[in-house]
């Protein structure tokens, strides 16, 4: 029997509504009551925040097929360094995760090489082609926690309708990337003043909003469950808010980079700022924050996507979309939401733990006795400099190099075992 105790930290558990100075005990990989057993490991967390491990709803792991960018081993190493103890991965692999064998490969590979829990997302349609439903039932039996075609929107409304109906039979949610393909074809950035200045093809906000409205209507009609991945516009937030008030089962996420960067960044022509959906203007950011504060949006995810330097160091329109985000998730959230006094730590932690657990249907995100011992110790006041060359991810495609930030992950336990300890942590 191994016993670990994290002593004297500010314990925050959004599920149990805890925010108090206390000790956290883990025995044999799960949270436990205070024990008189011999303590195997002790962590002094005075001045620290102790909370459930973060849950990422949509990282791209790229194994198999695109291992030059990332593998399950490197992505999960990056995850734990960022405080993430569970991550769901998009089926953007080669071959596509559209069958049971592919789901099982990811789970097995994660057991072999992963440093945190990995929950595969299966494809909605065969080969993510948007034409025929994938074998959703068998994907679920193989371990898929939800269904998505990743960054490829389910463009055909009839397929999306049937997908929602079919997936609901297995109690699974469909994650959609809301974007009308023909309105963003060839697009590089948000359509607005800066796309006009730079002569870059724009991706209008309406391309997202039309799709959000469509998915809300289909979820309402079918009674299915839809998750809108990384919404980025003010009207999207308002559509989701009203749908939720009507009782439609719709959830949404945002990324931290959409909260701290605007489309003005594109003036540097830095391809590390090329993301999908694109960085928007200030008024959209304000609406996203409002949606997080009032609970309309219940998930913050990094949307981690590694792109090798050879592909990022190209002309902006030839370079792929994507930012590596797992290792900068926490400090960017602190900057956007806590330093700006929009919310306190308990609410932010809920957006990184309990919210994602609900969307993924996972029994995680709490420090309750008997729960899996995934826990992160945070120094909320530590100031540090982001240096992409130190990332554990295989790629360093991040626009945040050189940023002075606050809030640092110190120690992480996954199922009661120490998975990460910052060099020099107390």
């Amino acid at each position, binding site marked *: 029997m191994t016993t670990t105790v994290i002593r004297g930290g500010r314990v925050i558990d959004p599920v149990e509504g805890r925010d108090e100075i206390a000790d956290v005990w883990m025995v044999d990989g799960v949270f436990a009551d205070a024990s008189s057993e011999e303590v195997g490991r002790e962590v002094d967390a005075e001045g620290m925040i102790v909370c459930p491990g973060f849950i990422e709803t949509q990282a791209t792991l790229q194994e198999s097929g695109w291992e030059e960018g990332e593998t399950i081993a490197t992505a999960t190493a990056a995850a734990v360094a960022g405080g993430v103890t569970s991550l769901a991965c998009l089926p953007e692999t080669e071959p596509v995760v559209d069958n049971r064998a592919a789901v099982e490969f990811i789970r097995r590979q994660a057991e072999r090489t992963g440093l945190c829990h990995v929950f595969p997302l299966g494809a909605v349609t065969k080969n993510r082609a948007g034409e025929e439903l994938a074998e959703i039932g068998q994907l679920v039996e193989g371990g898929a926690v939800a269904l998505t075609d990743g960054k490829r929107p389910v463009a055909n409304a009839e397929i999306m309708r049937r997908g929602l109906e079919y997936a609901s039979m297995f109690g699974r949610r469909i994650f959609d990337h809301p974007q009308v393909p023909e309105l963003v074809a060839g697009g590089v950035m948000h359509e607005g003043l800066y796309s006009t200045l730079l002569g870059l093809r724009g991706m209008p906000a309406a391309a997202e909003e039309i799709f959000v409205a469509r998915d809300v209507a289909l979820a309402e009609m079918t009674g299915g469950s839809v998750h809108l991945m990384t919404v980025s516009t003010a009207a999207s937030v308002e559509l989701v808010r009203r749908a939720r008030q009507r009782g439609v089962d719709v959830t949404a996420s945002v990324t931290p980079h959409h909260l701290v960067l605007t489309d003005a960044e594109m003036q540097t*022509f830095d391809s590390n700022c090329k993301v999908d959906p694109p960085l928007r203007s200030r008024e959209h950011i304000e609406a996203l924050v409002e949606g997080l504060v009032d609970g309309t949006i219940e998930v913050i995810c990094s949307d981690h996507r590694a792109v090798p330097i050879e592909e990022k160091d190209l002309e902006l329109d030839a370079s792929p979309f994507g930012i590596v985000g797992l290792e900068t998730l926490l400090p960017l959230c602190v900057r956007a939401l806590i330093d700006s006094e929009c919310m306190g730590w308990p609410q932010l932690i809920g957006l990184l733990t309990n919210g994602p657990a609900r969307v993924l249907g996972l029994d995680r995100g709490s420090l309750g006795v008997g729960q899996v011992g995934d826990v992160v110790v945070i120094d909320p006041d530590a100031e540090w400099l982001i240096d992409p060359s130190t990332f554990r991810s295989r790629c360093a495609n991040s626009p945040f190099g050189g940023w002075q930030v606050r809030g640092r992950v110190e120690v992480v336990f996954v199922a009661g075992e120490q998975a990460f300890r910052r060099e020099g942590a107390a």
Partner: protein
Amino acid sequence: MSTTPDDQPDRPGGPVWTSEHLLGLEDLSAEEITVILDQAEEFKRCSQENNTKLDLLRGTVVANLFFEPSTRTRASFSLAAKRLSADTIDFTSSGSSLSKGETFIDTARNIEAMGASLVVMRHKSPGAPHLLARRVGAAVLNAGDGTHEHPTQALLDLFTIREKRGSFENLTVTLVGDILHSRVARSNIWGLKKLGARVIVCGPSTLIPPRIEELGVEVSHRLDDVIGETDCVNLLRIQFERQRGAFFPSIREYTHFYGMNAQRLKAAKDDVMILAPGPINRGVELTAEVADGPHSVILDQVTNGLAVRMACLFLLRERQKSGEGQ
């Protein structure tokens, strides 16, 4: 990078050329633009007075890298370098980085390794010269980056207007046509606004980019409404190769509303100037009658382009040499 036309600080001690690269007119102050125009004026006078080469860039290697088809701009840059006694390397490729196997940065670095200190580049992607400028030691001169900027074209337009009119005060310039896909329009807007002209952009609503008014221009959709108050009309080429899908129903309808013909010329001011960056589509943006008529300065633009490009190459090389001496 500045986003408003007139936030450049005044430089005490007279106008000095300080830019390492020439990437766009957005980055230049009115003083810097004037330095180029003055230098170009001197070069034009020199070549008119005695038609011989100048010795100013002897020993300098100028690389012309054209990753997008071009005839006149490439010829103009090549000749400008030769008129200054530079050695030139011409490289033409229509392939993109991805299809060629070698990135354009590798191509440029290879050519830099042959000793080029000035790199003139045209590329179909906005920002490609900016990327290059961060990666090579040579001075980079943007000869057109996608739909972003084409600084030397705008400079030769400014030169031509200034030559005929003396100044930009109380001058109204109307840019007609496809503003959305036009690098010439963007560079012209920056340059004209910085020098104090009034600018109208006129074209079908599908070809006017969003929030263009915030650059300080007025928007019109009917040429007939604004032709009477215009001193200079710049007829942008309809870029068939950049159009994705239907931005207007037909050439015929475009010409009906935006084509410059004898009838519209009658409604214009007596001394109206007709500019066009070319290559022109006769019968589309303007009729042959207008192109070859007395108001047209299209061929003056070509002549002036040579002087302007000589000035840009010379100023960048001078700046580079002053840096090497430090």
